[in-house]
């Protein structure tokens, strides 16, 4: 059986259960693909020994006939997840050499279900970035290219390594985290599916925090069905995370009926941005038609506070980050600067953090410190919180009108070239999140589904936004969109 690494989770699960392949076979196939893909710089800490040990254990469980769906499935794990005994650095130099003594709730649930860890995946430092260029490991590279143009493209960020690895079939699926679009944007840039669950659906315990009120982990997969299967294993209340919700986890895969007749799909007029590429506008229109053809009703809606979302996000997220990142002080773990004669604790903090944090992280820590400081708190942080409440209310209002899901573009463009934004105003980079941040601010589930390719041959995605806790319904809508779009393209292998 060739190309085991190219299987979806559902296909691999069925093959494993039928005895057509073993987890060790799958794992070896992925490891071979990983070895050949160093040009993508997706995996930054491969864990072959752990992978094979887990694969053998999974095979034993499968043979014993007690295998959950994720059993034996080789995955990549974003570096933001703490994995016991394995480097977990959030792609930052400040966590150099850090190997946690504990396993994040998400990874321990996945491994408990029999999933196999191939290694840790590249990302933007502390999940701050939209191009994977802020990583201390250097950027991951998008397996997609603009036709024959060899210009290296970004896989997006911050879960860029996860997206590149899944798109290039280095693993069957990967974990991601999404604070302002960090799952959905890279998924859209690489032609895969990325789901950000409702805030509180998945435990944050053991995930290195960026902005605690926005961070949420989710699956990055080749298909919507895979996202359903993988979310099933990740989700659920965790007593160690006070913000995780005591809400039952339904059978997500069983919800993929393909029947969305009578559902109401909202098209928010505020997402029609000025200067939006016509291809994206066209794709959005096509997406709506596909859902309409499947029996859904398309409704024009308004989310009036949308334009304030990005600025509010870039106040709230840095504010929380400035506090969350205070613990990286060189005292207990990670990097500590070499001190000069006479240096005291202040110099230790300053030098350690100046050396350990990259520029973008420093920028956000400074923004966050500023917006929380005396005299500016009300003007920035408090106002941003009020905006956030209004944005949440916008969504509540349309859901109250009977809207089941909202369709928007996932990104304002297809993948851009690495380095292209290097000299741009940081705000230009922040604009990548324009369609995705509202979902985080409102705590809603959102999914990016690959729906087409642009003229350059690059994948484009649409985003579906669901009601809180309605991932099952959202996945079903995404499933219909995926099926109608029939997106099957794969990047031409150049690496």
């Amino acid at each position, binding site marked *: 059986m060739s190309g085991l690494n190219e299987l979806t989770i559902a296909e691999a699960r069925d093959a494993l259960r039928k005895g057509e392949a073993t987890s060790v076979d799958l794992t070896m196939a992925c490891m071979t693909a990983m070895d050949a893909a160093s040009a993508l710089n997706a995996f930054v800490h491969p864990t072959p020994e752990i992978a094979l040990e887990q694969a053998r254990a999974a095979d034993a469980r499968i043979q014993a006939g007690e295998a959950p769906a994720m059993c034996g499935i080789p995955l990549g794990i974003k570096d933001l997840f703490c994995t016991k005994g394995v480097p977990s650095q959030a792609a930052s130099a400040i966590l150099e050499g850090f190997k946690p003594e504990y396993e994040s709730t998400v990874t321990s649930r996945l491994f408990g279900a029999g999933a196999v860890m191939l290694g840790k995946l590249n990302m933007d430092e502390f999940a701050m970035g939209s191009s994977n260029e802020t990583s201390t490991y250097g950027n991951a590279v998008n397996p997609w290219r603009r036709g024959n143009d060899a210009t290296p493209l970004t896989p997006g960020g911050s879960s860029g390594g996860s997206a590149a690895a899944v798109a290039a079939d280095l693993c069957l699926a990967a974990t991601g985290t999404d604070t302002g679009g960090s799952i959905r944007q890279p998924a859209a840039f690489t032609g895969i599916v990325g789901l950000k669950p409702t805030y509180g659906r998945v435990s944050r*315990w053991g995930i290195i925090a960026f902005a605690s009120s926005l961070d949420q982990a989710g699956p990055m997969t080749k298909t919507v069905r895979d996202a359903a299967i993988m979310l099933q294993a990740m989700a659920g209340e965790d007593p160690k995370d*006070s913000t995780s919700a005591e809400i039952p986890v339904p059978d997500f895969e069983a919800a993929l009926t393909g029947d969305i007749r009578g559902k109401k799909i909202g098209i928010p007029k505020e997402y029609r941005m000025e200067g939006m590429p016509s291809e994206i506008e066209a794709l959005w229109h096509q997406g709506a038609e596909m859902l309409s053809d499947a029996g859904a009703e398309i409704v024009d809606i308004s989310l009036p506070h949308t334009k304030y979302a990005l600025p509010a996000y870039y106040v709230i997220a840095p504010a929380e980050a400035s506090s969350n990142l205070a613990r990286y*002080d060189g*005292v*207990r773990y990670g990097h500590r600067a070499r001190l000069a004669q006479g240096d005291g604790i202040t110099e230790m903090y300053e030098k350690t953090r100046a050396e350990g944090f990259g520029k973008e992280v420093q920028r956000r820590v400074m923004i966050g410190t500023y917006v*929380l400081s*005396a005299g500016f708190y009300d003007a920035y942080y408090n106002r941003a919180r009020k905006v956030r409440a209004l944005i949440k209310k916008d969504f509540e209002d349309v859901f109250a009108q009977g809207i089941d899901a909202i369709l928007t573009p996932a990104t304002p463009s297809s993948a851009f070239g690495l380095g292209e934004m290097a000299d741009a105003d940081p705000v230009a980079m922040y604009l990548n999140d324009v369609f995705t941040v509202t979902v985080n601010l409102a705590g809603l589930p959102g999914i990016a589904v690959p729906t087409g390719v642009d003229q350059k041959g690059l994948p484009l995605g649409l985003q579906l936004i669901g009601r809180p806790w309605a991932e099952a319904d959202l996945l079903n809508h995404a499933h219909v969109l995926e099926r109608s779009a029939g997106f099957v393209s794969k990047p031409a292998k150049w690496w």
Partner: protein
Amino acid sequence: MLDLTFEAPKPKVIQGAKSEWELVIGMEVHAQVSSNAKLFSGASTRFGAEPNSNVSFVDAAMPGMLPVINEFCVEQAVRTGLGLKAAINLRSAFDRKNYFYPDLPQGYQISQLYHPIVGEGEVIVEMAPGVARRVRIERIHLEQDAGKSIHDMDPAMSFVDLNRTGVALMEIVSRPDIRGPEEAAAYVGKLRQILRYLGTCDGNMQNGNLRADVNVSVCRPGAYERYQETQDFSHLGTRCEIKNMNSMRFIQAAIEYEARRQIAILEDGGKIDQETRLYDPDKGETRSMRSKEEAHDYRYFPCPDLLPLEIEQAWVDDIADRMPELPDAKKARFMADFGLTDYDASVLTAELDAARFFEEVAKGRDGKMAANWVINELFGRLKKEGHEIGESPVSAAQLGAIVDLIGKGDISGKIAKDLFEIVYTEGGDPAEIVEARGMKQVTDTGAIEKAVDEVIAANPAQVEKAKANPKLAGWFVGQVLKATGGKANPAAVNELVARKLGL
């Protein structure tokens, strides 16, 4: 209802070089919550453990770790609030107070700035019988303690012990209602007593489990009254905060010093800088720690790792139903039920263990006599040896038995003291000791009469004197008691001596 009417004490007046001044004091008392586990982690709070042994991943602020509230600590805060007759906020929230220090691993302290769990309450601080200060409590909030930095173990290095990191504290904030150093110490003492009664803080000041930040300002007579009428702080002087005081004696001394320092500046035409000061007990002075300009910008904001803390009225009611009797109520009851003086009742209710001990002794007996024996004999003896009531070698049952023997007239008060000493040093059943050692009082009038006759016969000169001056009959009583080895019932001897002398 208890009669808790009282008069307010006079404020302390300090005579400056030029004029009179009054003191205005407000306090922030940090009380470590009595609990086995820390506020947001399961780590132990045991005192005296090896450095860095009571530390969880959460306490050490490892990446990705999250706080989870300890319900028992919340219950303790609610209990404390109820004990201070305070409003309980069914919805409160945690905020982060951000600053860098090596003993603060997270880089922030989780506290409750905007929405504390307990609102306004009060503490009645008695300064003399019928004279008490009502100190208003502004709020109580829950927060994490920091760890300990140790700078003097090595010339070049500092060490950090995280055992205390994350232990729950209640910050009890008073209004500026305290008017003198003695009142300040008495306030802390009263608060400590209530907390110990409630079992919400052990009050151990030496270990730092109860410590106070003291805000001191001075004003001219009359200004404080204007503040009280208007609640407008501009009538009061600029305050300085003296940090981290963990002794009542130092609190008093620091306030005295600080008041005089401020008065000297003001009388010199200067002005007080609002600042944080530290008290140096060796030099007996306060010194500036940081000025208002150097004050930290703590960048408080709601802690996004914790949902607002919502508790139910039924739960609060349940805690209220299980409240112990508090010092003021117990004292009033002791006075009413046992006929004790204000002073004796205060002494006996100072510590819950002592009050319990007394009640056991007094149960079914003469309350005043029981109080006398507990306070004068037992407390006196314990104090001499530096023992606490919990370490008393005499149990309440034993002391009660001694009181019973006196009450029945089996032994005299004098013999009872000897008996107490035997029980204190050797132990044993008081009744059996009295029996075995022939300490029983002689009530047989025949035997006493014989002794009286003998003393009268042997002292004819004294008889004459006593007949002239009946007050001297006491001499005969003493002689008879002496002759009977103290075992004769003094009342019986009195009566016989009077009769025989024809008085």
